[in-house]
């Protein structure tokens, strides 16, 4: 293999920065120095599409209007569990303005339930049954109301703990397949194991299965913490709902999708309609938030396409707010039993975890790997069960499982620290072996002024202050199927193309930065064309994989294109191209300062209209932990929370969060801050506010709207300060990773620990509401 050796920055500036030599493929570009020495990487570069966003010109999927376009609405079940005996569409059909109606019919498969029924069995209230396309959305809605569905109702179960009981109504009589929505990474949930509604357990992850001997571990322990923690179901509620606009013409089906995974939507649509992938084009220029729930074409995608085919017109199908809450994903609940043993010196001897959670009719309600990997412990075992209920399916949500898991683990570690009479931060210094979290604890604690923390419940007065901390880890995932094309156009102009989408994280901007840095140009000189599956396939925006997966091939393709351009200049100058460079838009020569040519002039030397280079993600330097793309290292974070609790009213306010994070080489500081703010605010919301309320008697969600589904608005937003720790590990040509998941994992745990510090009573369940505070203080029963 053709390799060469190169020296890379390694470690954390201001802490342990050094150099490391790596043997890398010969075609990889030379090592970038630390950010201080770069021009546009690691700087506050303004978002390249911000102008479109602040002027209202950004066209989202929901804003699309094609000539002749029809508007579609889904027909949904009004009951939670039933067989459908008949559906009468005659009245809807004759309504003026209605162009097409489609009912979802049962795909009969051997061994599945209800195989003789014409329509699929209803498993939750809100399940899609069909759709109508009409000349306006109002007409489509009217038509839906005219469709008569006859149900043969079956007993149903909503409450998770009741669903676990023997004799509870059974949601599925048969084994169900693992839910794959492209957003979760690596968790295995097997719906064929287990009894009744309780499926599983899942006992292992890609970090391995159980280790050591738990009984021995707890025998060796001097202290044990044994608690049960509970978390609620909450829904993603992206501002733009799920949906598509489908324009199906003779030779290609174009799907404008509000998605975080254009490539996956293309694959699903091609699969459903038996089309070659080359004949399905998925486009997503702007999308209004996803947070994990928008990886799939769902049932709305195929529905819109079918209606487009039936009517011969483009079809717009965006869900409404209620449908979004009910059908398009949620973070599953959890009831987690956790037992942790430690010796007097604080060292951990055993961690036992057992969880039950419900993702409704879906699977994937685990609590992640955080208890398995955050702190080294020789003896560990987990059992994670899925409980099926007649409610809408869960979906990946920032750091699937791990947010729930962190809420339990990081409180238990605090409880252990207290039993050991140790400061929670100092205790983590003792048991946490991560170098980056050590630096984050130091820098975060200094900014937060952790030293002012008082013993739990010791505050005077009605309003008590509390300080708390929580930590997290997230793997460095790399999607190897990540490709880009970089083009230099004759006469100037540089373009990058990929199917990867920007879901609001700023992917477009960091791609422009990487190209600009490598090409010696400014960010404004780079045109980013992404979110289109007619371009090379990029990763889905999930698992914080995008930056780590797509920026190295972006740099590499740019490097290759640049080399080709420099060869043309070298030929003209009669020099060796390796002696040439581009800086500030000028081609120059390393030793002969008289040789200069503008980038634009250089491109005029091209024989063809373009230089085009395509690159895909290469293996990490030094390889992976797992060959499928589990990189070495992790994305460690530490968050600090300050809360005020009114002990008379139970009112809680999060006053401040300090969020200390690492993501390898940071690419864009402003955008990183933004994304961390988002993770923190969603964490505040999870800890204190949001909660899907289901009616056990009818199976309907009671707060499927914005006004009764409480999330923080401006008055509830705490002061947030971020600490971004540069951490170089010399694993790729950019050495950069994402921040989406890490930003959201530790917040709820930090807040719960701060609430305990304020009132001196620990609350093991979220959301922590005024009512739960007053109950904890024995002020109400």
């Amino acid at each position, binding site marked *: 293999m053709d390799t060469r050796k190169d020296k890379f920055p390694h470690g954390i500036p201001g802490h342990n920065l050094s150099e490391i030599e790596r043997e890398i493929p010969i075609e990889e570009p030379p090592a970038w120095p630390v950010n201080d020495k770069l021009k546009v990487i690691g700087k506050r570069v303004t*978002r390249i599409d911000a102008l479109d966003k602040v002027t209202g010109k950004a066209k989202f999927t929901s804003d699309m209007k094609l000539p002749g376009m029809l508007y579609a609405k889904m027909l949904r079940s009004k009951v939670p569990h039933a067989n459908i005996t008949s559906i009468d569409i005659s009245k809807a059909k004759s309504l003026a303005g209605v162009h097409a109606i489609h009912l979802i019919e049962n795909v009969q498969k051997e061994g599945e339930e209800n195989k003789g029924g014409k329509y699929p069995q209803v498993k939750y209230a809100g399940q899609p049954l069909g759709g109508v396309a009409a000349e306006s959305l109002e007409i489509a809605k009217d038509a839906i109301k005219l469709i008569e569905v006859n149900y043969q109702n079956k007993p149903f179960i909503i409450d998770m703990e009741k669903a676990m009981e023997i004799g509870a109504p059974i949601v599925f009589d048969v084994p169900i397949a693992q839910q794959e929505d492209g957003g979760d990474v690596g968790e295995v949930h097997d719906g064929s194991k287990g009894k009744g509604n309780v499926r599983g357990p899942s006992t292992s992850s890609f970090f391995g299965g159980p280790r050591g001997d738990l009984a021995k571990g707890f025998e060796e322990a001097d202290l044990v913490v044994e608690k049960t923690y509970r978390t609620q179901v909450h829904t993603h509620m992206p*501002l733009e709902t799920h949906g598509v606009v489908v324009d199906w013409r003779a030779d290609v089906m174009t799907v404008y999708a509000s998605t975080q995974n254009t490539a996956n939507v293309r694959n699903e649509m091609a699969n459903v309609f038996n089309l070659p992938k080359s004949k399905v084009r998925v486009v997503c220029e702007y999308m209004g*938030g996803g947070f994990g729930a928008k990886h799939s074409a769902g049932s709305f995608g195929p529905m819109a396409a079918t209606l487009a085919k039936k009517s011969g017109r483009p079809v717009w199908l965006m869900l*409404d707010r209620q449908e979004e809450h009910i059908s398009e994903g949620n973070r599953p609940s959890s009831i987690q039993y956790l037992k942790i043993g430690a010796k007097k010196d604080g060292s951990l001897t055993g961690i036992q975890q057992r969880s039950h959670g419900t993702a409704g009719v879906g699977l994937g309600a685990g609590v992640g790997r955080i208890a398995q990997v955050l702190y080294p412990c020789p003896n560990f075992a987990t059992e994670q069960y899925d409980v099926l209920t007649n409610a809408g399916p869960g979906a990946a949500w920032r750091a699937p499982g791990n947010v729930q898991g962190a809420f339990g683990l990081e409180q238990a570690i605090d409880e252990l620290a207290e039993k050991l009479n140790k400061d929670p931060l100092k205790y983590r210094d003792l048991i946490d072996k991560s170098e980056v979290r050590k630096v984050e604890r130091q820098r975060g604690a200094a900014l937060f002024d952790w030293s002012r923390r008082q013993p739990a419940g010791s505050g005077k007065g009605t309003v008590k202050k509390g300080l708390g901390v929580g930590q997290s880890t997230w793997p460095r995932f790399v999607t190897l199927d990540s490709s880009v094309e970089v083009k230099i156009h004759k006469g100037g102009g540089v373009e990058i193309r990929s199917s990867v989408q920007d879901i609001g994280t700023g992917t477009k901007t960091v791609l422009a930065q990487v190209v600009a840095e490598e090409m010696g140009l400014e960010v404004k000189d780079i045109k980013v064309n992404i979110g289109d599956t007619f371009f090379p396939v990029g990763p889905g925006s999930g698992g914080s994989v995008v930056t780590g997966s797509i920026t190295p091939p972006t740099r590499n393709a740019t490097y290759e294109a640049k080399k080709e351009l420099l060869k043309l200049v070298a030929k003209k100058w009669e020099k060796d191209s390796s002696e040439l460079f581009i800086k500030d838009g000028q081609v120059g020569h390393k030793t002969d300062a008289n040789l200069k040519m503008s980038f634009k002039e250089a491109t005029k030397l091209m024989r063809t209209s373009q230089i085009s280079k395509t690159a895909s993600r290469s293996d990490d330097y030094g390889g992976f932990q797992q060959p499928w793309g589990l990189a070495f290292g992790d994305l460690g974070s530490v968050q600090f929370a300050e809360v005020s609790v009114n002990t008379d009213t139970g009112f809680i306010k999060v006053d401040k969060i300090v969020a200390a994070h690492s993501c390898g080489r940071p690419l864009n500081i402003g955008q990183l801050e933004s994304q961390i703010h988002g*993770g923190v605010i969603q964490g505040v919301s999870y800890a204190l506010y949001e909660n899907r309320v289901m009616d056990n008697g009818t199976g309907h969600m009671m707060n499927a*709207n*914005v006004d009764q589904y409480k999330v923080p608005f401006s008055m509830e937003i705490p002061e947030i300060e971020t600490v971004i720790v540069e951490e170089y590990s010399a694993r790729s040509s950019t050495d950069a990773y994402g921040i989406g998941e890490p930003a959201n994992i530790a917040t709820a745990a930090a807040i719960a620990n701060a609430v305990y510090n304020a009132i001196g009573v620990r609350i093991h369940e979220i959301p922590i509401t005024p009512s739960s505070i007053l109950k904890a203080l024995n002020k109400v029963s």
Partner: protein
Amino acid sequence: MEDKKQESGSQPKKAITRRSFLRGAGLSTAGSVLLTTNAFAIDYNEYPVAGEEFGPDAITIKMKVNGITKSLSVEPRTTLASALRDHLELTGTKVVCDRGSCSACTVYLDGEPVNSCMLSVFDVGEKEVTTIEGIAKDGELHPVQQAFIEHDASQCGYCTPGMVMSCVHLVDNNTNPNLEDVKKATRGNLCRCGTHPHVFKATLDASKKTI
């Protein structure tokens, strides 16, 4: 209902007031509102006046948006948000909750912010509508828009038009707002990405530049 006179020659049995349309009570037999030549549209082409009754068929009305008087053919059940988005293709105004609880659809009526999803297009009358598309004047951004760009105050961008509308209104009417004022001005604006801290910073910064 007493204040609405029944128009002679209209279809009295079908006539439904705009308010009952907004309650979602009406079932329409009207045809397309999308086609440019709308066979069902009654040629009205005036600003609707309070006290008159219309519907259920579409009629052509006038509305002044961002300084330009537009003609549009709409059913009385049409909200202002829908008129802007679906009829005038001013899609910067977003519909998120569709029941007045998220402010994504904020526009100004004679300079005052309103939720356009909660307003019948027939209630606009002669008032002038300003949308996000009308905030930059002659290609020049409002200082709030400029500050939003500089402080990275948008993420996915879906709440951004509504946020900008709330913050522009504050900055144009309060020369020296503090953080509390900005929070109050945006307290109805739902954002799920968590842009709030940068929105606050941007707006405070913009207010300094407008003095």
